[in-house]
Structure formats: C-alpha cells, structure tokens
C-alpha cells in the first residue's frame, strides 16, 4: 500500500522564461487522504499538479510516489499510480469514441481482449456512463464529459487520483452528482479547485498555496475559519460558511 503515499520535498520549479512558479514546496499526503490544494490564480496549483505525474520535472527538490522518486526512469510506473483528471475534459478525450478513450490507458499498459473490455465497462459503470460508450466525445454534455474523463483514469486503476478543478463549468445537478461520485472513491485524492464548498464536503485537509509557497496546511474547517489568512491569499470563505443573505444567521 506504500504506493498510495505522495511525498514532495523542497520542490522548486522555474519555467524557461525565468518565472519561478514553485519555491520550496514540501507536502506529505498519506494513504486514503483527501487533500485540497487551493490558492489564487497563478499561485502555482497547476504547476504543482504537473509534477505529480512527471509531466514537469523539478528544477530542484524531489517528488516521491510510494518509494519511487519521479524521474525519467520511473515515469511509466508513476503514471499508472497517479491518475490525472484534467481541467478541460476536451483535452483528455481525444479518441473517436468514449469506449476507445477509456480503453486508451489500459491498452497502453498492455491489457487486451476480454480483460480490457471488463476494465472499460467497469470504469464506465462506476461513473454511471455505460450508456455513453459508443458516443463520440463531442456529443457529450459538460457533465458527461467530466464523468467520462474520470472513467478514462479509473480504468487504469490508479492509487492516487489528482483532479484539476473537477466541478468547473458544471450545472448544480451535475456538480452534486460528481461530488457524490468522488465521495465513494477510496483512493487518495488531490484536488485543486476554486469551488470551496466542494472542498469543504470532500477534503478533510487543505493546503493553501500563495506565490509558489505553502502558506498554510491543516484541517479544512480550521483553514476556512481563518479569515485573515484567506483574505491575504486572495480567497474567501465558502458560501455555506458565510452568513445567510436574508436573515444574517451564520451556519458554522
């Protein structure tokens, strides 16, 4: 089970144009934990996520998935362990049909024949999208696209799920459906989002990034109660923790 642990030590990343996106980030995410990474635009969230499956390699520092340090030699194993759901599902769904798209990952892992079929239908059923299998991705609604994008990753049976703004652009029903779905997953989860209400429901722990550094790291409720911290990091309390606009009553 050690592959469920994610360790980041003194991670620094500077882009070729000199922009320093991450400076000295250290984190440890244990097995089964649900962690939200929040921060203002440009705080370094996406850069951090890109390091978790080795799309970007550190300028200095180390990212460890289980016992493996992420590097050129370990990419395949790391990418099987860490499933990444992208911000825009259109980037992730590139095959002609949903079925082929979900099969893409496992087929690259060398799974074939009936095993592959079982793997794909299993993943689609888990996100309630089995009926979409033979549709083309451009025919799906935003909510369906998002669920299918998650299935494309689930089919590789990852140990850690990394998601970039999963509820972005969804209608309230689709958002609720997605939150319900994510609650059922036993994986370790790393989620970045501006939807702090979702964070409140899904993640027991929150990491606040600001200017490429970890500004705070602790239990979600505690962090959301710290108004000064949130203001300083260009954030604000989730709506469900703010006063009611009609009666002014506070819920938490």
């Amino acid at each position, binding site marked *: 089970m050690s592959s469920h642990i994610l360790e980041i030590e003194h991670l620094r990343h500077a882009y070729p144009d000199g922009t320093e996106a991450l400076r000295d980030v250290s984190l440890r995410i244990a097995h089964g934990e649900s962690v939200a990474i929040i921060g203002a635009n440009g705080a370094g969230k996406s850069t951090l996520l*890109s390091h978790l*499956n080795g*799309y970007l390699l550190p300028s200095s520092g180390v990212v460890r998935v289980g016992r493996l340090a992420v590097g050129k030699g370990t*990419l*395949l194993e790391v*990418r*099987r362990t860490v*499933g*990444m759901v*992208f911000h*825009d599902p*259109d*980037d*992730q769904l*590139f*095959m*002609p*049909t949903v079925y*082929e798209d979900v*099969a*893409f*990952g496992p*087929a*690259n*892992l060398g799974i074939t024949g009936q095993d592959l079929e079982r793997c794909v239908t299993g993943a689609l059923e888990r996100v309630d999208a089995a009926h979409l299998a033979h549709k*083309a*991705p*451009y*025919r799906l609604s935003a909510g369906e696209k998002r669920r299918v994008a998650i299935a*494309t*990753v689930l089919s*590789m049976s990852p140990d850690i799920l990394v998601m970039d703004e999963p509820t972005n652009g969804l209608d309230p029903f689709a958002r609720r459906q997605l939150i319900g779905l994510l609650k059922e997953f036993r994986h370790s989860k790393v989620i970045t989002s501006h939807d702090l209400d979702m964070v409140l429901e899904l993640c027991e722990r929150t990491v606040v990034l600001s200017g490429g550094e970890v500004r705070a790291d602790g239990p979600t409720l505690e962090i959301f109660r710290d108004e000064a911290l949130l203001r300083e990091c260009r954030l604000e309390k989730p709506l469900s923790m703010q006063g009611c606009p009609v009666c002014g009553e506070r819920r938490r």
Partner: protein
Amino acid sequence: MASINQALLDLKRLDQLAAGGTVLHRLDPRAKVLATLVFIVSVVSFGRYELSGLIPFLCFPAFLIALGQLPARYLIAKVALVCPFAVAVGMFNPLFDQGVLVQLGPLGITGGWISFASIVLRSALTVAAALALTALTGFPALCSALERLGMPRAFAMQLLFLYRYLFVLTEEGGRASRARELRSLGGSGDGLKSHASLLGHLLLRTWRRAERMHMAMLARGFSGALPGGEGSRFGAPELLFLFFWSALCITLRLNNAPRLLGALVTGQLP
C-alpha cells in the same frame, strides 16, 4: 460564422450516417476504400474531351447511396457545394478552346464546352463517391483502414486528431468571431487587422491545447502508437464487392459503354 457552424453540423450528420447497419456499412472498410480508389482513378484518367464514357460511372455512387440507405438529397446538396470549385477550374475552357467537336444540326458544340462539362462531371462523381464512402464507413474507421492498407501510422494519427479537434477548434473560432462581430457593431471592426490578430490568438490557443493533450496522453502511458481496435475480417463479401466494382470500373474505363450500346442499337458494330 453561422455557415461554418452549419458545415460542422453537417459533418456530424455524416458521422451519424456511418452508424447505420446495412450490408454496405458492415463491409470491411478496406474493401470500400480500395473500390473507391479504383473508381476515382478510372474516372480521373479519362481524356479531357470524354463525356459519354463517364456517364455509366454514375452507377457506383448511386449503388452506394441506394444500398446503404443514405439520404440522396443531402449528399447531392454536398456535391453541389463543391461544384463551384470545378466550375472555376474549367470556366475558361469554352473561351480558349473554340474548335467545334460535335455538330448537332445547326448547333456546333466546341471542345471547350465539352471539356468544361467533363471537368464538372468528373469532380461531381469523385466527390459523390468519397462522400458516400465516408457516410458508409465513418472517418475513424476510414483512417484505420488506410493505416492497415499501409499508410504511415503518423498520418493516420494526424487525420484522427484533425477530425476530433476540428469540432473543438471551429467552436472556439466561432465564439471568438462572434465576440468580434458583437463589438464591431455592424461596422468592419478594424477589418483585416482584427481578423489577423484573432487568427493569431486561435493558433496560440491551439498550440497550448496540443500541449495539454500531449500531457493527457502521456499521463495515460502513451508511447507513440494508438492502440488499434480489433479489425474486421476481409472475407468473401469484401472480395466480391472489391472484385465486382474494380472489374466494372476498369471495363467501363477501357470500353465506351454508351457508344457500344448506341452502335448495337443502330446495328453498326465496328
């Protein structure tokens, strides 16, 4: 932009048609691709003044449309859309080529007009066959058939991505263009300059999307080749289809059927 969006909807319709279940839909795509290729080569290789010999070739697209239960009117409209290009290619022939080739009573038909008609008919035939092929097979299956026939894998992949992201790109371009129109308030909106900048942005955005897609592919273990689906078999029906149509096309190419028929009727066989 409305017209582009319309064209896009039409493309999706072509894709929907490919989901049909007729005998022709079920044939291995390779047989259809090869037969269409023989057809196109036969049609294109005719001499420039050939008109009567081309007419029997109409039977191939007509056969595909009828047996594949494709909507004929829709496909004919698509073919008509391409005709202006053929007209533009051949429009000066009647001016330059004034030699009379056929005398119909008092009416002399010049070589220019005949070659013009030949160009238009040829383009209509080839486009109709290609459209019918796509509507019967579907673009992705067409790509994999081409790949199995020996087209380099990189090309097949490029074609597939082109097809997948055509929809995304045109929607993005459509939105950008609508935003420009709304703010130019019926005027020219800085004309060519704003269009150039819009295109530039679209290109940059496409670039970044390509990077993100690449990242998505790498994240799922992509190593340079798309996993191929299980291919259909090239069996007896495929062989029969391919053999029949190739033989017919080649026979029609080598013999002018209308002339033979005419000779038979008038009893003047050579």
